[in-house]
């Protein structure tokens, strides 16, 4: 497919990496030639220097024959103009636009048809939504939903006093008293898709699929006492904080925002009349203490500086805040370092946003429904979880998984099958049929695009 990516900032670059690996024809547009040069020698793509909202540049980039335009420059207005201009050149082109200014978000859905937009992404709102999910279901570091929310892929860390420490996977159901499947274990920086004899250790981060309705049972059997979150402190008053505060207000959770920029605090105070907003230096522990961090239920580090977020989360953790969530902008580069720290859940708006776009692109390429319905990356981008619908062309239907295992490439797992409205956590005798939804877990380098790619 021919794809134009306008603007190669953080999201643009991460999209370039993922879509180039899928084998698309990609042309990048940006005004900074050094960034283009770097990406063009790193990935098999072409770069074009210029303003992506001008007709000439879009023409040169081949907009007339392109299938998709992804406008992710740092200015919403340019993104919109870029899409409108591309539509003028090619009425059939799909357009994905990033809009992050909260003042536009409410009206943009109404203007969607006027601008001819196929998909609107807002990384900050997606991140806020993701954080809200975590806060409403405390206990897990990350949560990804599949099969319309019936199956969940959750991440948690095994502490020294956890009942799971030292348990082999074979004995897991007797401890948890529920059918669950551990898909992946991260020990240190290495990721394993474990077998039955794998023994869990304290410090492991495990990724587990379970039916959504069992989540609270699992938490109870794990001995994680879940308080309902009543008071949350947000460090940093950016866009994510704004969206998140709005959502948490609706859930009846008390929100406190701390930011050091006076003008921004006043702006937030105008927009969010019921939220308590204070202005102060977040790097100063006494400011956080004054806000009552020790007695809060959750702390979310949301400033624009990754380093500052890490430091704040470490401090919150030392103050025994039950839930700590850290926002990170450049997650892959720092993965090795931060996975060893007690940062709680790590949220990357960039990763969320590119996941959404990649999902759209994959569903667009393949109208036969063979490509993944949803794609989520977990474990700092090392593991990919995809959801497929079994179509007429799928191989090995109605074969028990125990026989299928010989045909599947190593490093790939089918943890759950969704058949006629009910979820089965897969065992040796499970099988899939046409029309079922199947989840596939794989290490990221396997490059699974179609379901049949899992077979060796």
């Amino acid at each position, binding site marked *: 497919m*021919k794809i134009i990516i306008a603007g190669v900032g953080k999201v643009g670059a991460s999209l370039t990496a993922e879509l*180039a*690996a*899928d*084998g*698309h*024809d*990609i*042309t990048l547009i940006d005004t900074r*030639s050094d960034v283009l040069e770097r*990406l*063009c*020698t*790193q*990935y*098999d*793509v*072409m770069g074009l220097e210029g303003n992506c909202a001008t007709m000439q540049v879009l023409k040169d980039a081949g907009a007339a024959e392109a299938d998709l335009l992804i406008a992710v420059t740092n200015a919403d207005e340019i993104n919109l103009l870029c899409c409108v201009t591309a539509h003028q050149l090619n009425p059939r082109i799909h357009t994905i636009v990033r809009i992050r200014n909260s003042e536009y978000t409410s009206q943009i859905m109404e203007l969607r048809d006027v601008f001819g937009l196929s998909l609107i992404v807002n990384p900050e709102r997606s991140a806020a939504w993701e954080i809200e999910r975590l806060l409403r279901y405390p206990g897990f570091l990350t949560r990804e939903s599949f099969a319309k929310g019936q199956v969940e892929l959750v991440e948690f860390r095994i502490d020294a006093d956890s009942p799971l420490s030292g348990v082999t996977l074979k004995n897991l159901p007797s401890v948890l008293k529920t059918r669950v499947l551990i898909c992946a274990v991260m020990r240190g920086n290495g990721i394993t898709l474990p077998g039955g004899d794998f023994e869990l250790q304290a410090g492991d981060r495990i990724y587990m699929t379970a039916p959504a309705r069992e989540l609270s049972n699992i938490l109870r059997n794990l001995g994680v006492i879940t308080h309902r979150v009543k008071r949350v402190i947000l460090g940093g008053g950016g866009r994510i904080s704004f969206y998140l505060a709005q959502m948490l207000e609706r859930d009846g959770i008390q929100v406190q925002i701390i930011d050091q920029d006076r003008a921004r605090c006043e702006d937030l105070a105008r927009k969010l009349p019921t939220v308590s907003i204070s202005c102060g230096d977040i790097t100063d522990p006494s400011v956080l203490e004054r806000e009552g961090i020790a007695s809060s239920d959750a702390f979310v580090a949301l400033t624009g500086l990754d380093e500052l977020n890490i430091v704040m989360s470490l401090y919150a953790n030392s103050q025994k805040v039950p839930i700590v969530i850290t926002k990170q902008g450049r997650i892959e580069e720092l993965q090795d370092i931060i996975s060893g720290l007690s940062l709680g859940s790590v949220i990357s708006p960039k990763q969320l946003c590119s996941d959404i776009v990649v999902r759209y692109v994959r569903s667009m390429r393949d109208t036969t429904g063979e490509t993944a319905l949803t794609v989520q990356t977990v474990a700092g981008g090392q593991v990919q979880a995809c959801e497929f619908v079994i179509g007429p062309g799928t191989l090995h239907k109605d074969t028990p998984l125990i026989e299928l295992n010989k045909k599947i490439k190593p490093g790939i797992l089918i943890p759950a099958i969704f058949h006629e409205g009910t979820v089965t956590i897969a065992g040796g005798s499970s099988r899939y049929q046409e029309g079922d939804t199947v989840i596939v877990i794989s290490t990221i*380098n396997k*490059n699974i695009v179609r379901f049949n790619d899992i077979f060796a």
Partner: protein
Amino acid sequence: MNYKSLSRFTALILLIEAALMSPALILAIVFHEPRSTAAYLETLAIILILSGLFFLLSRGEKADDFYEKEGLACAGISWIVLGLTGALPFFLSREIPAFIDAFFETVSGFTTTGASILSEVESLDKSLLYWRSFTHWIGGMGVLVFLLALVPRGTRGSGFTMHILRAESPGPDVGKLVPQIGRTARILYLIYIALTALDVILLSFDMPLFDAFCIAFGTAGTGGFAVTNAGLGGYSPYIQWVTTLFMFLFGVNFSCYYLLLRRQPRSVLKDEELRFYFLTFFLSGLIMGLVIHPAGGNLEESMRASYFQAASIMSTTGFATVDFNLWPSVTKGILIFLTILGASAGSTGGGMKCIRIQLIFKDLRSNLKRMIRPGRISLVRNNGRPVSDNVLENLRTYLSAYVLIALISFLLLTIDGKDLTTSVTAMLACFNNVGPGFGEVGPMGNFGSFSVLSKLVLIFDMLAGRLEIFPIIALLSRTTWKHD
């Protein structure tokens, strides 16, 4: 330096060479040439064993890091390896008894120079003649580009192959035609094959099919090995005109053909380099034709000879229909100018390339303006677009390296004690991948009488000329080979 990737590339290049050599083996069998057949079989065995060894060396953990350094070294090494192994059929069949001569001949073939050490080619086995011409065709578009054409889409780390395309393709600012490198390489090769096929068909109307293929290979790669002792002088005027046309065509930037296929003739006609290339060709042909035209002679004959030589030297092919060694001084001057100027960037031709000369002049002009009026902002533009400082910086480095290499090679060649014209033009003809020079190395002469040292110098010049200096220089630099 990523030695594992380097070995893997060398192994792949050797495999491709083996595949490309097999038609020559079939010809040797068909023409009943027992010595050549044996030589080809031995060569293929050696190549396959070497390839296997390199594959063994490249085993183990695959590293993804492949940067400028690796791209340059990869291009340099594979061309030397190609020259060494490609020379084996000549050497093993004893048709060229000295290995240095066989090596010279093969490098001359792959680099599309066309400089020969043979005084007499007609006695060579036909399959060897074929292989000699076919090396031109392989070297013209480049064997690494051929390898890139085989890269499947979406391969991990395939963006790094851009460094290889840059190292092997001629021109100051190498870009892709389409976003994917594999498709870019395939499009280039398809255009190349189509043009070559057209040439073969047109030539075969008036010459034996074997000759038509060999001459077309020499024309397409802008090489210049002929299959008869008289060069192209022995063929009909029709053949000479067709070859003139195709030599010119293969010196055009291939992206122009791609734009024509995309039905954008206007941007092709507006291309500054193409205009300059055509105008220089047209004027130099005209002037030389008028200068050599004898009173009362046949005008068509003079113009044919003059335009043939202009196209041949400018596209750096090096075919000859007449002995232009005997021409007046001013025409020799024009031919030496065309030798250095060369063809267009992104073509199969050599030389400095028209675009570089244009940019050098524009750069000079803008710098002079700044000297006269400090504070004046003056951009260097090509086709209306500003040329980046990076490209200009590279261009200046290239120019300095070009002059230095030319000077040093010339000094080393004078040790042989040949006359100055021979020494200078031998160096220029090899460094610019043209082939014939003046004096002893004129169109009817050959390079056989040079000493081993001179031949090595000229081999270096040919490789440096074809790969545009940097990949070969990089091999000599210690930083290239350091582990880091």
